[in-house]
């Protein structure tokens, strides 16, 4: 249960909101690099944190992210011409560079160009490619943090794959699904047996034979570690450990030698979010069949409405609910695919779930703690200007893990370095 004002505090991320200010402390995934595949390619409309923006890649390969609308008459620059090192409005030809600076007003006399242009600058944000993702920072330029160091974005390109999808609900309820480890035994029980990106791992047997896991939530510098333990061989537990790094990064514990995966949950506005989904292997290239499976929507990825980032299964078609498959036990909910199993239920809660009415239980402790940490960070930033957890590069150097440990060993100690990025060292997985 959350008070109404706290629910609003955590779910509203537009300009000038406390949570919006918090998000604006971080480098955030804005687009996939594939959306701007070449110089002078078509611009892309982007909405982030309730700001309508346009992204483009100019003639020299520079990326730009700026206000979508021309300063002249408010026309969308999506209709513009991306040419000769700038984006030109289709209405009267005003032209902007990647920093949002107006560089040409064709209707004005030549001698007035520079004077007038200099005074016109659209709000813009840096856009940087790291890995498969274009990242932006929407906060105070004077406080720009170090570039992101997430391992999935820093390994060689052939070791990583990232997709994204539109989810039609507030970012927080989507994120909460990512740290709610207790639903996995139910909603996703089919995936362990059938999905090519999960099946075959020894750890799956522990999941399937012990359906009443115990939970441990450990506060960390950057967020939380959420440990879930199940019985393993005599005197041992099988632990699956999910890191959450503030505000919006989660990493799912691995299975066998399969790639590791996870998500970024990025607000589009208060009723929609982007789910960036990464999959990577720390020490080897992804196999062609693995990449194909990811493209086909397996694992934690999804299929799309052609030409869009909207999932093929969506609220307009009841997520292609298959009651027969549900009855047969092929899927628990009747919905195919892990990501859509989550999205269908999270969207069913409504655009912004009313948390004053929920009835949490102790297995929701990870969610409770995450909200508490977000709330504290928002207040500390707002009241004292304290930079929130997760901005520091050190907080980003985390890994999930799946390990078997003696029963008397805490997972934090038992995992040792396994919860930390170690370049060139394989992830801890069973």
């Amino acid at each position, binding site marked *: 249960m959350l008070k109404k004002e706290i629910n609003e505090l955590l779910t509203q991320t537009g300009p000038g909101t406390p949570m919006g200010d918090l998000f604006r402390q971080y480098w955030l995934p804005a687009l996939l690099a594939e959306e701007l595949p070449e110089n002078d390619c078509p611009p892309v409309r982007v909405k982030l944190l309730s700001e309508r923006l346009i992204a483009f890649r100019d003639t020299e390969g520079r990326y730009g992210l700026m206000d979508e609308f021309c300063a002249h008459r408010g026309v969308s620059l999506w209709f513009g011409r991306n040419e000769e090192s700038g984006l030109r409005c289709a209405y009267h030809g005003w032209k902007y560079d990647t920093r949002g600076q107006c560089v040409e007003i064709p209707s004005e006399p030549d001698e007035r160009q520079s004077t007038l242009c200099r005074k016109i600058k659209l709000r813009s944000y840096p856009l940087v490619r790291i890995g498969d993702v274009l990242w932006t920072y929407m906060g105070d330029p004077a406080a720009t943090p170090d570039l992101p160091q997430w391992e999935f974005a820093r390994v060689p390109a052939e070791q990583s794959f990232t997709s994204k999808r539109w989810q039609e609900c507030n970012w927080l309820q989507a994120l909460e699904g990512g740290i709610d480890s207790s639903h996995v035994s139910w909603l996703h029980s089919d995936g362990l047996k059938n999905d090519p990106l999960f099946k075959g791992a020894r750890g799956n047997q522990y999941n399937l034979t012990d359906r009443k896991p115990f*939970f441990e939530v450990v506060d960390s510098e950057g967020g939380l570690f959420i440990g879930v333990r199940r019985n393993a061989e005599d005197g041992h537990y099988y632990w699956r450990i999910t890191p959450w790094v503030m505000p919006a990064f989660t990493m799912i514990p691995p299975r066998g030698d399969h790639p590791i995966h996870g998500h970024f949950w990025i607000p589009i506005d208060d009723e929609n979010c982007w789910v960036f989904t990464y999959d990577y292997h720390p020490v080897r290239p992804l196999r062609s069949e693995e990449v194909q499976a990811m493209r086909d929507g397996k694992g934690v990825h999804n299929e799309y409405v052609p030409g869009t980032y909207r999932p093929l299964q969506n609220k307009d078609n009841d997520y292609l609910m298959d009651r027969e498959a549900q009855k047969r036990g092929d899927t628990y909910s009747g919905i195919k695919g892990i990501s859509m199993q989550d999205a269908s239920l999270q969207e069913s809660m409504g655009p912004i779930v009313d948390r004053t009415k929920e009835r949490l239980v102790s297995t929701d402790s990870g969610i409770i703690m995450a909200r508490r940490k977000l709330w504290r960070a928002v207040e500390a930033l707002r009241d004292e200007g304290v930079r929130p957890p997760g901005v520091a590069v050190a907080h980003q150097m985390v890994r999930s893990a799946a390990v078997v440990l003696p029963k008397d060993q805490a997972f934090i100690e038992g995992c040792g370095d396994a919860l930390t990025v170690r370049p060139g060292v394989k992830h801890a997985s069973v």
Partner: protein
Amino acid sequence: MQRQPTLASSCARAATAAEARFRISYPEFARRNSRVIALDGAAAEVVRQMSGQRWDGGHFLVFDAALPVDGSGTVPAEARLRRADGTEVLLSEELHGADTVVMVAKAQASPGQATTAQASPGQATPGQVSAAQASPGQASPGQVSAEAAAVIGDACALRSIMSAGLVIPGTEPPDAVVSALRPNAMVLVILRDGDDIPEILSALRV
């Protein structure tokens, strides 16, 4: 796959903000019966402070002493607890009708432990642990909590009551306390800041 038609009245498209006002409200849901029990002297202070706040019917208690059982294994574990006002109550009485038990332990050897350990069980004051739990200068935080956690955990398991554990940071590493609680709590939360506890309990509608 046989597909049913997607109906505007039944499909997920009804999950809009406008549709939210048609959700049924349940003000009449029965209140929870939560018990918050401090396992050691250091945690007792935290629990006692919280007990003075406004809660939704939760009881705030301090573990005092495990009571002897006949060893046959047929009699449930029993313990003596103390309420915030110092009065005694049996664990079994408190668990009657309870649906959630939150155990609170602090990773710290509190001064109260040694003091109480020298007193007779009957003289223990609220918030202190008894001689049965600790001997002066020897008991580690984990040892202090272990017996209390085991007794309460067993009693909860027997009655199918959800048990959770909160570990507050203290002067000692939390490992021993965590190990003591792990077998006895379905959920363990290891905190960096004890100030989070009221919010956690509030979220659980204690």
